[in-house]
């Protein structure tokens, strides 16, 4: 659920460049980690599960304006690092069809990768201690809540740039009608006033954003947790060997 639907051209270049750099670092790390495993055996599964994530997003859930993501499920079945690569692949395809801006793709990959990594490690930690259903549901809820918080944090961080964008636009228009000389005496007072106004409006607009996103996000988290739990318990009944944590434990046992 927690991927950014921020349109292109809204956040300042510095933020999406940071997002892309973070994504590049994460992918490099992921590829290095995966190279140690048997690449040929995991690549087809990675392709299939990424396609499966894309398909799950297409399933209508009635009147609720949300869709399944299955990031935690992918991480459970693929392992954390292949889960990160699956997140990248899915996000790239989504960005190409306009589902989330292409410029925010780096940030999206970082947010959803946190979901995959946290979900996997929580599931692995809880798997032996509690029932599978509870472990899956807890891992999904915690991972999705954390990624939702991360998404809101990113929106909060980048907010100032949107106001700057608007102010720049207005200043550009003003500059055409006023000369620099007539504006000079006003500048000092205006700066202090606009800074205070800016802080207030940032706070108000972030609150409004949170009020819009959190209720939808919470519904999405509950639905995703139910779906992931049902799917994981189904797989465990039919093909328990497919669960990534199970693989590791078996390998260690051997």
């Amino acid at each position, binding site marked *: 659920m927690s991927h950014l*639907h921020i*349109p*292109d*051209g*809204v956040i300042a*270049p510095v933020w999406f460049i940071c997002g892309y750099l973070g994504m590049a670092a994460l992918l*490099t790390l992921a590829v290095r980690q*995966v190279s140690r495993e048997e*690449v*040929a*055996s995991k*690549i*087809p*599964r*990675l*392709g*299939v*599960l990424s*396609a*499966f994530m*894309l*398909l*799950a997003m297409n*399933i*209508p*859930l*009635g*009147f609720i304006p949300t869709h*399944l993501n299955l990031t935690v499920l992918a991480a459970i*079945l693929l392992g954390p690092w292949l889960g990160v*690569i699956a997140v990248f*692949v*899915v996000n*790239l*395809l989504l*960005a*190409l*069809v*306009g*589902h989330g*801006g292409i*410029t925010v793709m780096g940030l999206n990959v970082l947010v959803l990768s946190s979901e995959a990594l946290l979900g996997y490690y929580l599931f692995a930690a809880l798997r032996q201690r509690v029932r599978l259903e509870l472990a899956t549901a807890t891992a999904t809820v915690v991972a999705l809540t954390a990624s939702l918080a991360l998404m809101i944090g990113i929106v909060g961080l980048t907010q100032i740039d*949107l106001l700057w964008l*608007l102010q*720049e*636009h207005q200043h550009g228009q003003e500059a055409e009608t006023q000369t620099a000389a007539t504006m000079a005496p006003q500048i000092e007072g205006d700066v202090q006033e606009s800074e205070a106004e800016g802080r207030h*409006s940032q706070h108000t*607009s972030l609150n*409004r*954003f949170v009020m*819009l996103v959190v209720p939808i996000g919470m519904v999405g988290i509950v*639905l995703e947790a*139910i*779906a992931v739990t*049902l*799917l994981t318990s*189904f*797989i465990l009944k039919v*093909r328990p060997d*497919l669960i990534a944590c199970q693989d590791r434990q078996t390998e260690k046992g051997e």
Partner: protein
Amino acid sequence: MHLADIDYLAFQGNSLWHKASALSKLFFTLVIICVVVISRELPLLLFTLALTLALLVLAGVPLRSFCHLLLYPALFASIFAFSRLGTSWVGAALVLVKSLTAATALILLITTTCIPAIFGCLRLLLPPLIADALLLTYRSFFTLLGQLGSFMTALRLKGGYAPLKIMLNLRSAAGALGVLLIHSLEASERMHRVLVLRGYRPGIIFAGKWYRPTWYDLGPVLGALVVLFGAVLV
């Protein structure tokens, strides 16, 4: 998402834009995205949007079937504009036009270019493992799409889907997805055996020619230059 329709259009289209290479169209898209990111001038952005929409029409893309792909980013842009810009209509219009322009450029790219050709260009930037994963995902998507379509039809026919019953929908969707997931994972195991048999190593899937410049490339390149010229003038 209508990836199957997009794929059909990209492969079957015969316009001049379709005939241009993926690399030139990626260049055009990159220029549009850069203008969207950098420019704060509404007239320039409106001109760019009009140009990309005109190119979509000229490329034979049925706007009626694909307008929802444009409405989707527009919807989120308007929520974003409402939540963050308050009552300023200029700022809201700017956010809306920017999102529409970027989405139109991307839709122009994917409806006129075969996605494997785009992946072919991206492999220059991506590790071979990820480039292979992209192509396998794309291939698997269409295999699974057919199966999911049959599952969904069966669900509807047997009363497993009702727009207002979320729990029923979720239970049915999870059941259908569970069976589909097991089928797809078994298919991936078969694919693994095929890859091993053929001596797979990362990057081998994209081996071969991926870019041949043609005169048709002039279209996207000139289009990009017109937009760049407009940006410099404004």
